[in-house]
């Protein structure tokens, strides 16, 4: 069976190459101008080549604007949430799938309903709550509220349900309790989901903006995305080399994670859709 071509092959390639270039253009331009001095940026016509301020601009955003510190903070909270949420979700899914207990339907609904409660919606009340706990300006404010989620629980639940029942039956007959079964059989079989969820959660936390913006006032605890805001709203707003250098620095980690782990990324997406 031969499909009649929707479009000539050469045209498809051309359109795709143009699209790929358009998609990349903003970041490519940002990188080029992140290497230029203000004078180089404002000259006419602009030069689309590496300028003379590459080291200077990046060293300024890293040290003077503390993006290095903010990166460290972002890394810290992202890793903490990724690990914490994985453990918490794994345990909850273990209970939901492998145990018989009363009110299970209600528990399920209780977790499911939180899908409709993004942090942004309740930002005012959450701010009052976390401030009341004395957590403003602390990492706890950026970590603890994100340690559990319906998405994480349901990702593991789905994975567990695809594992043959015979495995758990065999484990039980051999006298393995639920925790032993979870540790020696379930966990090793779930590494795919762990990796997929890890990537998605890491990027999700790395990209947090509104919540850190309102709850963190002490700039030594601030995260990278809000640090970027300081570049654009500072007195140096016209030094576009600094702004673009900051953007490039802030996008690198998530982009590296994406390119290294793109399979997990796609799989995480697919899982998230099925839930």
């Amino acid at each position, binding site marked *: 069976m031969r499909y009649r071509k929707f479009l000539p092959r050469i045209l498809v390639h051309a359109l795709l190459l143009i699209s790929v270039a358009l998609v990349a253009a903003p970041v490519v331009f940002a990188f080029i101008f992140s290497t230029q001095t203000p004078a180089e940026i404002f000259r006419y016509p602009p030069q689309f080549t590496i300028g003379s301020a590459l080291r200077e601009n990046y060293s300024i955003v890293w040290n003077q604007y503390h993006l290095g510190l903010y990166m460290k903070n972002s890394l810290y909270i992202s890793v903490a949430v990724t690990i914490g949420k994985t453990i918490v979700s794994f345990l909850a899914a273990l209970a939901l799938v492998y*145990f*018989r207990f009363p009110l299970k339907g209600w528990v399920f609904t209780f977790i499911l309903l939180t899908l409709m409660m993004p942090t942004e919606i309740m930002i005012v009340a959450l701010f009052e709550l976390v401030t009341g706990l004395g957590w403003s300006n602390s990492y706890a404010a950026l970590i603890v509220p994100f340690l559990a989620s319906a998405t994480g629980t349901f990702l593991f639940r789905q994975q*567990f349900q695809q594992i043959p029942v015979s495995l758990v039956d065999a484990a039980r007959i051999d006298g393995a309790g*639920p925790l032993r079964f979870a540790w020696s059989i379930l966990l090793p079989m779930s590494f795919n989901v762990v990796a997929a969820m890890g990537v998605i959660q890491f990027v999700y936390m790395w990209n947090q903006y509104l919540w850190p913006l309102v709850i963190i006032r002490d700039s030594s605890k601030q995260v990278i995305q809000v640090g970027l*805001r300081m570049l654009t709203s500072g007195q140096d707003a016209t030094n576009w080399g600094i702004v673009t250098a900051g*953007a490039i620095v*802030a996008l690198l980690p998530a982009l590296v994670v994406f390119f290294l782990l793109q399979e997990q990324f796609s799989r995480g997406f697919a899982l998230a859709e099925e839930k």
Partner: protein
Amino acid sequence: METHAVYKHRWLPWILLLPTFVILLVFLYYPTLETFRLSLYRVAFLGLRKTFVGLANYRELLTNPTYHQVFLNTAVFSALVVFFSMAIGLFLSVLANQKIGGRRFYRLLLIWPYALSPAVAGAIFLFLFNPQAGIVNYFLQAFFKVQPDWLGQPTLAVGVLVAAAVWKNVGYNVVFYIAGLQNLPGDVLEAALIDGATPWQRFWKVTFPLLSPMTFFLFVMNTIYAFFDTFPFVDLLTQGGPNGATNILIFSIYRDGFRFLKTGVAAAESVVLFVGVVLLTILQFRLGERRVHYGG
């Protein structure tokens, strides 16, 4: 499903669920309910004095023209972001799904901006569309002799925000549409081919209807994105201006709640947004179930 549940224990499952319960209860359920409660109060002195005002905050939303504009902005902005993200996403997916060499390569290079944060995208677009230094105006000047003041004009400012939000999110739609295209039943497409349908007819009469479950799923996800994740774009690029033209609900909540210290009004706005999300979710579950039957 239930066949997996082989273990029975009086308290162990509850211990396993405890961390999830505590977090969801304290940091999701409680603040959500508290938002409803706060929306009935006027809060003064940084939350120290609360006065019950009934539905006055909602009346404010209904009667104050500022909020009419916010709702209208939110609807227009979200509609534009959703439409263009999905239309461009579908177009690129169809292209990247043609039987040509280098498909994986193209796919990867089309989706990567999805990994970037809205703040990064916002900062980059702030530079690109800067009237003096921005590269967009350089090209416009060179080819068309115009230098628009992008963020100073209401319509243009909305356009820049939409462009930034769409650029960041197209990749997400490409991921899902390509997956959807690859899962289409080949026999139906073949039947259409044998019936002599043109490629154009094949796409609109066969492929597109078959993709409708995916389109609907993406509609919901893109709407959620437009409602919430676009805050950094507004915050970095326009601060709601000029003249409130880009003040969308999520930004208005932030501004009322944390700058104008109108906690009650901000809470009422949050409730409106919450109702929107609940309606979307209900819609998703209703149609989501039907879709299982579609797929057979």
